[in-house]
């Protein structure tokens, strides 16, 4: 298991992706699966900075990668405002171009790129996002 803490700013995203890229490579995922993990983690961390912290340099992001036997577990913690995924309206891209809004696209991508996605908030740990990418049988 490896853990690294990053400053909560957009400039950190490249380093966070590199961190999970390494873990996903080491776990034996193929290129397409690694991209899915990178994208899910990038979207999650961008959401943390933008919504949970409400801006850059407000708090840190702790990222843990754990190679399970059947997959890669990624745990992302932040100390921002509690996040309730139930409040996020799914994006609607069936509407006309001028009516498209970006809200919810990040969460939609996260849910589709990863196999398990759980958000938990506690006063002790703050927001904890646990995601798992399963290995192909």
């Amino acid at each position, binding site marked *: 298991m490896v853990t690294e803490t990053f400053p909560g700013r957009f400039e950190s995203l490249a380093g966070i992706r590199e961190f999970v890229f390494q873990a996903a490579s080491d776990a034996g995922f193929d290129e397409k699966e690694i991209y899915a993990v990178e994208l899910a983690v990038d*979207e999650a961390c*961008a959401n943390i900075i933008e919504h949970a912290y409400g801006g850059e340099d407000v708090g840190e992001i702790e990222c843990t990668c754990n190679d399970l036997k059947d997959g890669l577990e990624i745990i992302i913690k932040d100390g921002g405002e509690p996040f309730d995924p139930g409040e996020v309206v799914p994006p609607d891209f069936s509407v006309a*171009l*001028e009516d*498209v809004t*970006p809200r919810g696209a990040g969460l939609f991508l996260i849910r589709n790129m990863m196999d398990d996605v759980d958000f938990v908030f506690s006063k002790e740990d703050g927001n904890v996002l646990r995601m798992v990418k399963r290995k192909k049988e």
Partner: protein
Amino acid sequence: MEINTTHYKRCDVVKSVGRIDSYTAPELEEVLKKLTDDGKYKIVLDLEEVDFMSSKGWWVLIETQKACKRYNRGELVLTGVQDRIRDSLNLVGMGGYFQLYDDVVSGVAHF
């Protein structure tokens, strides 16, 4: 991230190199917004050397497409989109808002 713009008679070609995320998307947004603010609405965006694009990047492209297509005055077309980026675009369902071409020559020929 590296962004280069080439002006042609019939359209403008913007070539982006690198990774487009929440940190770098504002650079691309600035370049594209300058074009549309200058009245240039026929744009080819060459993404052949872009190997990562988050939803923040797609949103920049959606906003540019809105400006380009208003009053039928133009369009933003994308070229050389790598498979994994194309997959995520189609997965989210935003693929329908863009014409995709394999290379810049085909993209320019669109106009």
